[in-house]
Structure formats: structure tokens, C-alpha cells
């Protein structure tokens, strides 16, 4: 067996090794299970590692390799724990679903299972995907493998950290306001939110139905396209799903000749950290070097996107999460005295504070007398945001921005201030409101932490985005791997070194 570095191995290479017989699927799975054993106690990316499943299916792939010569056969994957998996407990990182055993499997997961990928486990997230740091999980806080004192982003923080830490070859996440792209950016990997409807939402535990979209988190743009190929498609189980007008192509572009890239001034006004801005500007220079042309554009309604999102998403969530009532499945409070008591205590004890906050905001926004002022206006803003983009795309092919205003921040540093947490998604949220596809690729480090570069395209322009991202990825040549350092611990050590006397008792 070739010695493989899980921090660098891509699906493209792993697939070739499998097909050439240089490695077995069981050996490949073991590479990741070993890495999980080594770093998971510090990263805590998984809510549940499915050891038996990984062993069983990788062995099956090896045994039936000839028959199962599927394009993804044997490639290990991590799945965000908000996609239901029959036979594997799915929690949504919530106490209310702590022991929930699904009776069916999400379409996107079913598709990769049918292609014989090997599921390694279910990854951590902010409870019900509500958050930008994965600190809202009811079970554990995932840490960023680039610096264990920082968050991996969220809500797909578990999936992003697992891929970055070499605990998975690639992963599926979901993106409602940036939940794939933002953690991908903070963890130094590739993450893509496809066009709304491109990937079936059937079996994705709904946060905000009109915004949620499943997508890949991978170590390369090529891998991103490869995984995307296998999860897109019309699904009769999801009325909002649509077939892409053309199949997803595996990208091979090295140049950006003639590509017009719009730079929205509004996104750069939004308190971007200098380090992030520097990496972004360098990447724009690469765009030009590759033959592309950067032009400033305006997306004038950007400042209203965040408030509109924080009306629409909670409104939909307030209804989507109403089904968790203790009647049919999931957590039920002990000894309810009557129906109302059961509802109140089940939900009061089952949901965490951020989920409750959004249910209350959403319920309020939909209430009689407030609907027009909140939900109605938010929908109007949404239309304006959408129009901003379609006007912009009359002049440019793609739009570029930093994925997030800052690099990974210290765990606990924003939990007390929801608004500062919400600001993480300022550059990603408008994309969800407009239902557009967008990718985040790593474009360098700032203070030793990864910076993400976002490319946004018109609806169904996945191939254009992937080609451009592929060319840029090659030009950027992002090479570093996470070090699993812990700046929190270093700070302690530094404190000690600075002369705090150590008393030694004997």
C-alpha cells in the first residue's frame, strides 16, 4: 500500500489509485479512520463515525469492484448530520432528534450511496444548521484544524473540518446563507452551493426551505465537480428541484481569457479584514494574469439582504420546526400533564437557544398585523436582490468577493453577540436569496488562517464557475495543510514563558 497523506489526497487521485488497484477501498477507508482516531479528539468534526458501515461497504466495494465500477465506488465521504440516512441516527445536532432513526434516506445521500461511496459518518453542525461557527451544536463544538482555538465556521463546520483535517476525502454539506462556503473558506477547502433546485432537498432536514441547498465540500475544484455530478438532477420527490440544462463537466480550464468578473463595491465596504482584503486583491490580480477582466459593479440592495434573510429564514424555520412536537418521534418531555404542557416542555427542553431565538423571530414576523411589515417586505427585498444580480450579469460573467469578511475567529468570541455572528454571512447570504450558484476556494492565508475567494454565477452556470475556479486554483497553487496548532494553548505557554512562575510541589 502506498503511503497516503489524508491531508492532501484528492478524490481524483484516490479514484485513480483504486481503479489501478494500487490501493483497496478498505485500505482507503482505513486511512481516514486512522486519521479520525488521531485527530478527532481535538477536532470533533463527527457526531457519529459509522465504523461498521465504512468497513462493510469498503469491503463490499473491494469484493465486487468489477461489478461496482461506479465512478465514485470506494471513495470515503462524510455527510452533514442534517441529511436523513436510513438506519443511521440523524440528529441535526439537536437534543430534540438525539435518538432519531430515519426511515428513509435523503435523495442526495441515496445518489452517492448508489454510486458506492463509503460513508464514514455524520458530521457536526449548528443545531438545525442555524449558525456560522458550529458552536450551536447541542453535542459538541468542532474546532478548526488550522487552529484548534478557532471555529471551523458553520453551519457545515463538521463537514468542512473533517475534510480539512483529513478525516474525510470529501463531504456533503448544506448552505442556507453561506453554510457550505463560509466553513470551506475558514477551513481552507473548496465548497460549493449549487443553483437552488439543482440538488434535491428531499431528506434534508429543512431549515429555510426556499434557501437550503445541498452541495460538496472538497479538497479541489475538480473533486467538487466530480461530487456535484453525482448529486444533481431532477427528483420527483422534491417539487422545487430542477434538472440542470447541461451536465456538470469536469473542469480543465487553465486560462480565463475574455472572462468578465464583476467586483461588487458593496461587498468590500462591509468591514473586510485587511488580511482577507489583501488575499482577495492578489487573487483579482491572478484573474487578470489569466486573461480575465475585473470590473467594478454595483449590487445596490446588498445592505438590505441580511435583514431580509433574517426575516425569511426564521419565518420558514418557525413552520419547518413546528413538526418537532413530541407526538410521533424524537424527544418528548417526561410526564406531561396535558397536551400544551407536552408541546411547551418538549420544545422548550429539546431546542437550543439559537433555534428558539429564530423560531420566535419567525413566528413574530408571520403574525397577523406584522406580516406585511416584515415577511412581505422581506420578500420584496428578495426580489430586488435578485434583480441586482440579473442586472449585474448582463455585464459580467461571474461576480467575485471574499467569501467571509474575516478568517476563522476564536471559539466563544462571538457567541454572546448574535449580530456579529450574523455578519459572517454578509457576502454569502445574497446568493441564497437569489438562488444562485457560488463556490469558495482557498486563496491564501492571513495570520496563518485560510482565506476564501467566492465566485458567484447566474443560475445554472455551475460549469462556468467550476472552470473559472479550476483555472484560478491552479494559478493560486494553495499548498499549505492545517497544522492542528492550538493558539489558545500556545497563549498559555507564552504566558508561562513570559515569567509566570511555576510552582512545583513535591
Amino acid at each position, binding site marked *: 500500500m502506498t503511503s497516503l497523506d489524508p491531508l492532501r489526497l484528492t478524490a481524483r487521485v484516490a479514484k485513480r489509485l483504486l481503479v489501478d488497484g494500487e490501493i483497496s477501498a478498505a485500505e482507503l477507508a482505513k486511512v481516514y479512520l486512522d486519521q479520525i482516531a488521531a485527530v478527532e479528539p481535538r477536532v470533533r468534526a463527527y457526531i457519529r463515525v459509522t465504523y461498521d458501515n465504512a468497513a462493510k461497504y469498503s469491503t463490499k466495494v473491494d469484493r465486487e469492484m468489477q461489478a461496482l465500477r461506479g465512478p465514485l465506488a470506494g471513495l470515503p465521504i462524510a455527510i452533514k448530520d442534517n441529511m436523513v440516512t436510513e438506519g443511521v441516527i440523524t440528529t441535526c445536532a439537536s437534543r430534540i432528534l438525539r435518538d432519531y432513526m430515519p426511515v428513509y434516506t435523503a435523495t442526495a445521500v441515496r445518489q452517492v450511496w448508489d454510486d458506492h461511496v463509503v460513508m464514514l459518518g455524520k458530521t457536526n453542525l449548528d443545531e438545525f444548521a442555524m449558525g456560522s461557527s458550529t458552536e450551536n451544536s447541542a453535542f459538541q463544538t468542532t474546532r478548526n484544524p488550522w487552529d484548534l482555538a478557532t471555529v471551523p465556521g458553520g453551519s457545515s463546520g463538521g463537514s468542512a473540518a473533517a475534510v480539512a483535517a483529513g478525516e474525510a476525502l470529501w463531504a456533503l454539506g448544506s448552505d442556507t446563507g453561506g453554510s457550505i462556503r463560509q466553513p470551506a473558506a475558514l477551513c481552507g477547502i473548496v465548497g460549493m452551493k449549487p443553483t437552488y433546485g439543482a440538488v434535491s432537498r428531499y431528506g434534508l432536514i429543512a431549515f429555510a426551505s426556499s434557501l437550503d441547498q445541498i452541495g460538496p465540500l472538497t479538497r479541489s475544484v475538480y473533486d467538487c465537480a466530480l461530487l456535484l455530478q453525482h448529486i444533481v438532477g431532477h427528483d420527483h*420527490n422534491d*417539487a422545487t428541484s430542477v434538472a440542470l440544462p447541461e451536465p456538470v463537466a469536469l473542469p480543465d480550464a487553465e486560462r480565463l481569457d475574455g472572462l468578465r468578473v464583476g467586483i461588487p463595491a458593496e461587498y468590500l465596504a462591509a468591514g473586510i479584514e485587511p488580511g482577507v482584503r489583501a488575499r482577495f486583491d492578489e487573487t483579482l490580480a491572478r484573474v487578470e494574469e489569466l486573461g480575465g477582466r475585473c470590473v467594478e459593479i454595483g449590487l445596490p440592495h446588498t445592505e438590505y439582504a441580511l435583514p431580509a434573510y433574517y426575516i425569511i429564514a426564521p419565518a420558514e424555520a418557525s413552520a419547518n420546526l413546528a413538526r418537532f412536537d413530541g407526538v410521533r418521534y424524537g424527544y418528548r418531555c417526561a410526564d406531561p400533564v396535558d397536551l400544551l404542557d407536552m408541546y411547551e416542555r418538549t420544545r422548550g427542553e429539546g431546542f437550543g437557544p439559537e433555534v428558539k431565538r429564530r423560531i420566535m423571530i419567525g413566528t413574530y414576523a408571520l403574525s397577523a398585523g406584522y406580516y406585511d411589515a416584515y415577511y412581505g417586505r422581506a420578500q420584496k427585498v428578495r426580489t430586488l436582490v435578485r434583480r441586482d444580480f440579473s442586472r449585474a450579469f448582463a455585464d459580467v460573467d461571474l461576480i467575485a468577493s471574499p467569501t467571509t469578511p474575516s478568517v476563522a475567529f476564536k471559539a466563544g468570541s462571538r457567541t454572546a453577540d448574535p449580530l456579529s455572528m450574523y455578519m459572517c454571512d454578509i457576502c454569502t447570504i445574497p446568493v441564497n436569496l437569489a438562488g444562485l450558484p457560488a463556490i469558495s476556494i482557498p486563496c491564501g492565508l492571513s495570520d496563518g488562517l485560510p482565506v476564501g475567494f467566492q465566485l458567484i454565477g447566474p443560475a445554472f452556470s455551475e460549469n462556468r464557475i467550476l472552470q473559472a475556479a479550476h483555472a484560478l486554483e491552479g494559478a493560486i497553487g494553495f499548498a499549505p495543510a492545517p497544522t492542528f496548532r492550538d493558539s489558545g494553548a500556545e497563549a498559555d505557554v507564552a504566558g508561562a514563558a513570559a515569567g509566570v512562575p511555576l510552582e512545583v510541589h513535591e
Partner: protein
Amino acid sequence: MTAWEPVIGLEMHVELDTRTKMFCACEVTKGDAPNTHTCPRCLAHPGALPVVNQRAVEYAARIALALNCSVRPRNIFHRKNYFYPDLPKAYQISQYDEPLAVEGWFEYWVGDEKLRCRINRVHMEEDAAKLIHAGGDAGRIAGSDYSMVDFNRGGTPLIEIVSEPDIPSPEAARELLQQLRNLVIELGVSECNMEEGQIRWDANVSVRPKGSTELGTRTELKNMNSFRYLQQALDAEIPRQVEVLEAGGTIDLETLHFDPDTGTTTPLRSKEEAHDYRYFPEPDLVPLVIDPAWVEELRRAQPELPAARVERFTAQYGLSRADALVLGSAHALAAFYEEVVALGAGAKPAANWTMGEYLAHLNAAGLEAGHGHVTAERLAKLVKLVEDGTVSTSSGKDVFAKMIAERAEPEDIVDKYGLGQISDTSELAAIVAAIVAANPAQVEQYRGGKQQVIGFFVGQVMKASGGRANPQLVNELLRKALGT
């Protein structure tokens, strides 16, 4: 002293007889073991999404067309939010401000008077599951020991028909409902079984000074499924409102419960009714775009509707409006009647027999028209036997009764019991002679000029012949025997 008039509006719910549920592929069934027709969708498991049943849209559109509504080319489903154990998602997918169809009307008959009620809207939604409360009193969730939910019914396609407040009396409300139910059955989209609650309705009612065009404050009578109770409830509620208003009081907008035992209406606890449903567009479904050409296709394929059939019965069979209404309103009875006529029975005698003996039999036996041992063939044969004089009308009724009891053909019954009309002159002449001989006093009266005594003789002869004597022949023979 003010004269008052009631103003009544109805909201009707009809479960559609589609094969599968509104938003999932579970079968719509009746009477199966609880929770045997469920899936992640109709149990609202996490991640499950609704998919619209196209057949349900078709059925709903056909009802809308029959109610002369315009079917809107684009309509939207909304979420209606409230918590209850029979509603697994804690919202009902329904329609709100962009429903399937709007602005129609329905014509119905009250006695000889044709009335028109405007239809505000027809919209689609899903039914709730069935709750069964154990212990406690009166089958309510509060106070019960425990409650069980049967999700088989949950998600059944349901349509709501909302009328304008155009209905002038409790009787008219009852007639409208009955005739509208017949219409839905005619369309073949629901059996409208009353016991199973396949059709149920809310009524709202207010009163106003006669001649006024303003509407008074209304009260609502919820979830009724008996025509009789509806009329009784309205008959109780209208005078109550009049009494309150005449005493200088005001009517509260509230929901009332009708107790058939006491015949009175009482307010439901208002807390239960303090709902804010927080409607918003269902993001899991795209707007339903309805092709006008498809609607036209549906319109062309509509069967003959009861109102048109009643008109046709008066023209084609020469029936009175009242008879045509009885025979033409409901699909099964109309089909039965037309079959009897098609088999050769005269239209009018067939109408009399169908409305008379046959309907009485259906009611007594609790049968639907077309079911039971009295087939259209048998009734047609019987009507023809009466028409051609083989049996008398009174014997015919006897034959009818025996047809049911013995499940036999009418001609066999006539033979078996000798119920054929006696038209044999010599046989009847003998009876006539005997009767004349036995009643000399009456003979004297008759011959003395009291012509009406002939009736007495006819009666005696009929009695002696077991009702089988041909009345015309008896008359002739009597006049001959009595010497006139």
C-alpha cells in the same frame, strides 16, 4: 316591530376519492387498520417534502367548473400554522389568497323556486388525521386518559367550497347542501359519504332588518355533517339572534356548538378559537400553473349535471318540475329511472312507480338507488304489466312487495299468486250476478235513480275478485246486470 331576515353562508369541505393522498403516494382508504397507510411525508418526518397529486387538482377543478367558477391559471399553496396532534407538520398545506378557483355560482331549487348562490372560492388542502380519545368524557382531548392518532386519513385531498352569504333560510341552506352534494357525486369525484365525514360544513349566519342590504354580525356553526341538524341549528340560532337584537343587545362574532339534544346553540370556549394561522406561501411547492387548454378539456368532458338533467327530464319525459327534481337531482336514481324508461316502461308511469314504491323501498331498506333486488329490468316489467292491463295498479303494488320478499321476477309472482287482472267476461259475469243477487236493496236504490250506488257494487266485485277484476269490464257488466 321590525321584521328580520336571516343571511346564511356555507363553507363546505369535501374529501376527494382519489386513489392516493394529496401530497404523498399513500392510498386513501376507509376502515383499514390504523396507521397502515402512512409514509415519511404524511407523518411529517424530518426532510420529507410534499408533492401535489395531479388527480386531486383535476377533481377540484371539475368541482370548480361545475360551480361556474373561473379556474385561475396560477395558484399558490400556503401553510396554515397551528399545533394539534392530528396535524403532523403542525401546519396544513392549504390555499389562501391565490386559490384554485373563484367567483362562481350554484343554482338550486327550494320547492318550485330556483335560487342562485354565489360561490366565493374553491380551494385545495389536505385533511387532518383522526383522533381517538380514550376515557374522560364526550370524546374530547381535555380530560381524556390518553389519545390516539390514526394517520390513515391524514393527507386525504380535501376541497373547501366557500359560498357568499346568499342563502335566505335554513331550509334553503339544507336544500343547497343536498343538491350540491348530489352535484359532487354526479361528477364522480367523491362519494360524499356522510357517516364517514366525507362531506362536512360550517355555516355562518346573521340577521338583518328585512330589506336591508347591510350584513349583521355573524356567528359560526362549525363542523356539521347532518342536513337535519344544520336546519335545526339554524332554526334555533336565528330566533336567538333576533331576540338579542330586539332586546337592544349585540351579536358577538363567535363560534357556536349546536346540541341536538337540547336544540340550542352555545358558544365554544373562545380560547380554542383564538388562532392566528400565520399563513405564508408554502416554499416546498412551486406555484401551480394550470393550462387553460387543460381546463377546457375538463369542461368538455364534464358529465350532464343535475340542474341540466332536471330541465331535460321535464322536456324529454314530460314530467312536472317537482317530479323532475325528485328523479333528476341525484345521479343513481336518475340513472335508474332512465333505465326503466329505456326498457320500455312509459315515462309517466315509470316516474310514478320510481318515486312511489321504489323510493319508499329504498328508504325503508336503507339502500342506494340501483342496489337491492328491485332492478330496473324488474320494475320496467312490472310497470309494463300494469300498463297493458295484465295486473291492476293495486295488484301491482302487491307484486312489488313480493318482488322484494321473494327476489323474483314480477311475471313469476303474478303467475304464482294469480295476481293477473281478471278480464275474462264469463268469470266476472258470474261474480257480478252473485253480487247483484245478494244485494236486492241496493239494486232497488240504483234502479230508483241513485246512480252512485254503482260504486258500492264495483267495490263488492273488486273485493270478491281479490282486487284483480278489470275495473272497466266490471263497470260494463254491472250496468248490464242492473239493467241500464
